[in-house]
């Protein structure tokens, strides 16, 4: 129960930061994708299941304020969380910072592209524009820069519920 309350607090806080603060603090007209960052951090720390659930809720809340159809961001975040959760589960050295940053970079960039692709499939205007490359690059880097506080928030929300570290591989020599 505490876990749900904490995650609700984190998601609403990040939503308010995204909508009220970072929508103004733009770099080259681009703002960070904080809610996608929260989804990625959750999936990395807690696995694809929780990542997908947090991503769905975060995306759905964000969708309320976007002109795109309801659940478009939610669907995108669910898929991103599933991917990141499985990648992090497959990597034994998941605690490595550089690796985590690289996965975050790739996941945010892929998430933005996925959002645009799904939106285009649904016939949404103004997604595939000549600014797309700028948006993907700047939003990805901007989000990655802000991942440390986001990750701390997610770890606080998880408390003692963090996913146990994967067991080291044991090699057996069969004669």
């Amino acid at each position, binding site marked *: 129960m505490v876990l749900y309350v904490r995650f609700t607090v984190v998601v609403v806080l990040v939503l308010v930061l995204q909508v*009220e603060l970072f929508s103004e603090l733009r770099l080259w007209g681009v703002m960070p994708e904080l809610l996608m960052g929260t989804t990625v951090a959750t999936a990395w720390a807690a696995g694809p299941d929780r990542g997908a659930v947090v991503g769905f809720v975060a995306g759905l809340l964000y969708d309320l304020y976007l002109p795109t159809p309801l659940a478009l961001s939610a669907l995108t975040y669910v898929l991103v969380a599933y991917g990141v959760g499985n990648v992090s589960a497959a990597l034994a050295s998941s605690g490595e910072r550089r690796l985590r940053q690289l996965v975050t970079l790739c996941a945010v960039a892929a998430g933005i592209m996925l959002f645009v692709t799904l939106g285009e499939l649904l016939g949404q205007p103004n997604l595939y524009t000549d600014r797309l490359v700028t948006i993907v690059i700047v939003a990805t880097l901007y989000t990655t820069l802000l991942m440390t506080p986001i990750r701390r928030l997610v770890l606080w929300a998880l408390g003692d519920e963090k996913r146990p570290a994967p067991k080291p591989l044991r090699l057996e020599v069969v004669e």
Partner: protein
Amino acid sequence: MAAPRRSGRSRFTLFLLMLLSVTLLTLDARDFGPVERLKDGISAVVSPIRSFGDAVFGPVGDAWQGLSENDDLRRENEELRSRLEAVQGEIIDDKGAADELRDLKDQLGLEARDEYPTTTAEVLAASISNFDEFVLEINRGTVDGVRDGMPVVTVGGLVGRIEDTGRRTARVRLITDPSVSVGVKVVGTDEVGIITGQGEDRPLVVSKGSIRVDAEVEVGDVIATSGSDRSLYPPNIAVGTVVAVEVDQGTLEKRLLVEPSASLERLRFVTVILFDPEADDAGPAAATTTAQGSPGGGD
């Protein structure tokens, strides 16, 4: 055996959430009532937190904008000062002209924008997305008589149209959006056409219509809504001023580049004209919406 079970559970969660997302997407596309109410309900719950966030973070955002747009603001300030002097001289002439225009309209029975009910709205937020920069969020919704498609103006002229109306909020799609088309006329001529946006900081363009190559349209001419049949907009709302005239040799029509007359940046307040084209068939008095409005409005 633990790993496959975990993977299977993850796939089940993924499938369930994807199914839920697709269902919501479909229902939202069909404007399904309960989904709309759910959206309104969640927005109402989050709204006070958002307002608190706006109060806390608003000054930070303003400071950032002030820093990042300092040079632009200074240049704009100088331009506005020089224009103010010119405009002050024109005001005196315009007062006389306005009186004459009012008399003429009375005699010809032309409709004026002031005759439609309006409601003034505060702009809650500009675009909060990286992709759709052509929207504003305002603090008026269906309870104020606002409906999808209604025109939104400032004292300068047309700003956009309402879409995705909630109970207490609505979105305004700006006329600079390339997907927005408005039926317009060149004031003082019989020339009509369709104006569309070309994106932020770019002029609007009248290209699809019947501005013939021999039409007497010049730079400086005023463009206003035509208010023709089935138009979403009442007639005679200023849209902009012609800044360039190009000739399309293929269609032998003129292509007009138009600078919007309303300032679309840093809008604080806008006015929604409670105009219902279907109810308006019998004239402006037939508009059925009854929100307590104030004429005019400002940015």
